C-alpha cells in the first residue's frame, strides 16, 4: 500500500495510539497487544504508525537492515558499504506461516541447483529494526508464538539446522492483534507482551460519523487525503524523535520506583516484568510529553496498558481488569 491511512486522522482509540507511540519511542518495551472488536481500526493503526515513522539508514542490500557495514552478518556476503535509506520495515506475519519461513532456513533453491548450503533469511531478519505485525495472533500456532516472543525478548535469532549455525540481530517491536471472541491467548503469552490495549467500537454517534467520513474521503483519494494530514503526522513524528533523544536523560526518582513496586504488589501481578514495563513506559511517556522526570501522573496514565493483562483472574471480582488497575492506582497513588 502506497498511502497508509494517516495516524493522526484516527478518531479516538487514544489508548491504542498512546501504546503504539510509546513502543516507537522505546522499542525495548516488548511489543503491544491489541485486542478488540471487529472493525475498530486495529490494523489501520499499525500501518499508519509505520508510515509515520522516519525512514532508517541501512547498508544497501543487507537482509537484516543493518545500520553499519560491520553489523552485516557474514552469511549475507555483502561487499558494498553503501548506505541507503529505507522505510521503517513493517513485516506481516501471515497465519499458517511455517517455522522455516519465520526464522529463515537453508536456501532451498541453492541447495537444489548448486548443492551448497546457504542461509535464506526469514521474516525475523526482515523485521529487524522495525515492526512485526501479527493479525489474529490468538489463532497463530502456539509454537510460533513462543518462538516469536523468545526472539523479541532476546533480540537475536538463532538458527541451527543442517549443520548451519546462524545468528543475527532481530530487534523488532511485536504488534499482535486479535478478536477475543475467536479464542483467547494463553496467560503465559499475554504476560510477555509489554503493553496491552483493549479497543472497542466508539459508542458516541458523532465519533462514529467522523470515522466514516474520514475513511470515506480517504478511500476516494488516498494521496490527497494523506497530504492533508501530513503536517499533523509530522508533528507526532517530531515528538517521537525528540522523545527518543531525551529518553536516556529522563530522571526517575526513588519514590517513583517505590510507587511502581507498591502498585504491582497491590495488584498481585506475577514476576517483575510488570514493574519494569511500567517504569519503562512511564519514562517513554515522560519523554514524549517533554517532562524531565517521571511523575505520578505519568504512572497513572500508563498503568492500565502496562498492567491490565498481568493480573490473575479474580473469580469474585466482576469488574474488568482495567477497572481493577485504575482502582489500585487510586488506592496506591492517592
Amino acid at each position, binding site marked *: 500500500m502506497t498511502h497508509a491511512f494517516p495516524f493522526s486522522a484516527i478518531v479516538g482509540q487514544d489508548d491504542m495510539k498512546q501504546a503504539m507511540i510509546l513502543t516507537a519511542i522505546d522499542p525495548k518495551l516488548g511489543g503491544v497487544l491489541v485486542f478488540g472488536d471487529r472493525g475498530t*481500526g486495529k*490494523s489501520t493503526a499499525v500501518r499508519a504508525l509505520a508510515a509515520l515513522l522516519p525512514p532508517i539508514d541501512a547498508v544497501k542490500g543487507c537482509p537484516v537492515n543493518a545500520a553499519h557495514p560491520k553489523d552485516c552478518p557474514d552469511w549475507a556476503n555483502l561487499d558494498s558499504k553503501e548506505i541507503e535509506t529505507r522505510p521503517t520495515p513493517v513485516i506481516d506475519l501471515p497465519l*499458517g506461516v511455517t517455522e522455516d519461513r519465520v526464522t529463515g532456513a537453508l536456501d532451498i533453491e541453492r541447495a*537444489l541447483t548448486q548443492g551448497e548450503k546457504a542461509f535464506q533469511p526469514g521474516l525475523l531478519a526482515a523485521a529487524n529494526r522495525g515492526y512485526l505485525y501479527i493479525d489474529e495472533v490468538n489463532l497463530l500456532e502456539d509454537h510460533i508464538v513462543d518462538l516469536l516472543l523468545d526472539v523479541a525478548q532476546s533480540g537475536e535469532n538463532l538458527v541451527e539446522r543442517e549443520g548451519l549455525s546462524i545468528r543475527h540481530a532481530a530487534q523488532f517491536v511485536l504488534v499482535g492483534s486479535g478478536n477475543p*471472541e475467536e479464542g483467547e491467548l494463553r496467560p503465559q503469552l499475554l504476560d510477555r507482551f509489554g503493553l496491552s490495549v483493549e479497543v472497542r467500537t466508539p459508542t458516541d454517534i458523532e465519533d462514529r460519523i467522523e470515522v*466514516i467520513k474520514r475513511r470515506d474521503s480517504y478511500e476516494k483519494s488516498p494521496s490527497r487525503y494523506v497530504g492533508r494530514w501530513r503536517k499533523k503526522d509530522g508533528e507526532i513524528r517530531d515528538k517521537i524523535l525528540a522523545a527518543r533523544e531525551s529518553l536516556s536523560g529522563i530522571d526517575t526518582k526513588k519514590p517513583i520506583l517505590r510507587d511502581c513496586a507498591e502498585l504491582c504488589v497491590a495488584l498481585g501481578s506475577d514476576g517483575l516484568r510488570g514493574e519494569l514495563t511500567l517504569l519503562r513506559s512511564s519514562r517513554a511517556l515522560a519523554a514524549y510529553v517533554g517532562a524531565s522526570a517521571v511523575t505520578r501522573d505519568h504512572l497513572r496514565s500508563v498503568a492500565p496498558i502496562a498492567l491490565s493483562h498481568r493480573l490473575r483472574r479474580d*473469580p469474585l471480582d466482576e469488574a474488568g481488569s482495567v477497572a481493577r488497575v485504575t482502582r489500585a492506582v487510586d488506592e496506591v497513588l492517592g
Partner: protein
Amino acid sequence: MTREDQSAWRDTLRAIDLLTLDPSGLGGITVRARAGPVRDAFLEALGRLKAPLFRIHPAMSREALFGGLDLTATLSSGRLVETAGCLAADITPMLCMAERCPPDRAAELAAWLDDTRGTLVMLDEAAEPGEIAPPTLQDRLAFFVSLDPIGRLEATPYAYQGVKDAHLKLDDVETPKNAPDTLVSIAARLGIDSLRAPLLALRAARANAALEGRDRICGEDLETAARLVLAPRATVLPQQPDDPPGPDEQTSEPETQSQDTDTLRLPEEVLVEAIIPHLPPDLLEQGRSTQLRSARGSGQGSKRRSNRRGRPLPSRPGRLGNGARVDLVATLRTAAPWQSLRPKGRGQVIIYPSDIRLKRYEEKSDRLLIFVVDASGSAAMARLAEAKGAVEVLLAQAYANRDHVSLIAFRGDDADLLLPPTRSLVQTKRRLAALPGGGGTPLAAGLRHAGELAIHARGQGLSPTVALLTDGRANIALDGQANRTAAREDAAAMAGWLRAEGIPALVLDTSARPERALNALSKDLGAHYLALPRADSVTMGKTLERALHDGLDA
C-alpha cells in the same frame, strides 16, 4: 411467485448489480441458500461480475489458495518452482460451504481481502441455526442475502442495463454532507457495532446512485443501501430515538425546494420504517443466541488438540516419543528437497531428526450437563414436579446426543451431588424420582457444588454446562446461616466465580411469577435466563433443549 418473493429477488439482483459496479469497494456478498433452482439462477446472475467466479473450498490447502512451493515440479526440474495459488489470478473466489470454514482459514481470506481489495462470494449452506459463515468474513462483505425464503422463480426476470455508463459516474457521485450521519445512526439503532457496516452502506448508496444515473446520492439510494447492507446485520429491533420525530414531518415539505444545498433532508425515521420489514425474521432469536455465544458457551464440546484421534490438523515438527505418531508423508516431503545436500546412500532417503513431522488431531470433547435443581420448600410447593419432568425430557435428548449428565440438588442447608456424571438414563430417573423436597434454599451452596464438579469434569476432558432450575429465593448463606442478605450475596459471588471460570450456564426460572433477583443472578453467571411461569414439564424440557442447542452449539 408471490410479491414478497419478487421483491426479495429484485433486491438480490440489485445487490449483484451494485457489486458489479464496485467490486473491490463492496467486498462481496454472502448468500445463504440450499442448492436449488433459485440458487442456480443467482449464480447465473453473478456471471455478470467482471472477474469470473472460481469455486474454492474451506478444505483447500494454503498452497493451492495463496501459492507456495510446488514440490513435485521443484524436484523434477531441479530448481525452485513456486505455484501462484488460485487467488493470484483475476477471479472472484466463491467460498462454498462457508459455514464449515475454520477461523484460521477465514482470517487468511480476510487478510487477502484487505490487502488486495478483492471480492469474495460466500455460499453459506447452513442448515442448523448454530451454523454460521465466519463473522470475520461476513463483516467485510457488504451484502447478505438469504434465498431460502424465495419459493420459486417463474422466469429469471433479469434485465440489466447501463452499467457501463455507471462505471464512469461512480467516482463523481456527490455525497450529501449528512448522508454518513444518517447511515451511522441507523446502524447504531440496529445494534450494529462494526464500523465497516456504515462505510460499506455508504459505498453501496453511491453505487446505487451511479446505477440510476444520478450524480448525487438521494434518499432512495440511502434506503436501498440501508436495506441491503444494514438490515441483514441488525442485532436489535430499532429503538425510538430520544428526540420526538415531530420536526421531521414538518420539514419534509421544504425538502423538495432546498435541493441545491449541500445537505440532504433525509427523514431517518422514514428510512428505519422502510427497512423494518427487511430485518431478519428471527431477529430476537438471533440476538439471543449471539448473547449466549458471547457468554463463552460452547455446549458442543470444546476443541482439544490431541495426537491420537479426531480431525487431522497440519502436522508440525517435533520429536519422537511420548506416544506421538509420525506423519510419514510430511516427513518425507520435508526431507526430500535436501537430499542432494546429504551424503548419498544407495537409493536411500536420508532423514535427519529435524525433518520429523508429527501428526496432530483435533477432537471434540464430550458434553456434560450439570443440572442444579432447587428442591427447597418453596420450589417443592411450586413446581418441583415439573422441574423433574423437564430434566427427564432433557435427559432423553441428552442421551440421544450422547451427552453426560449429572444432578445436584440443594435443599435444607446444603447441596448434594445426587448423581455423578453418567450416561445412564435409568439411574438418573431413579435418583430424580427419589428426590425429596422441603427446607431452605441454599442457592450458593448449589452453585459452588456445580462449579467444583464442572472444573473437575473439565480436567477430565469434558465440556461442562450448568443448567440451574430454581425459583431463586435464596435464603441460606454458604455457612449454613439463615440470612437472606448474606445468602443473596454469596449466590452472586459464586455466580461470578462460575463465570470467571468460563463455565457456560443456563438459568430456568420455575417460580410462578418471573423473579427479578434471578434475572440479576443469571447476569452474574453470564447465563441465559428463561422464565417459564406456566410451562408443563414437556414444554419446559423442550425450551431448555432448544436453548442449549441454539445458543450453546454455536
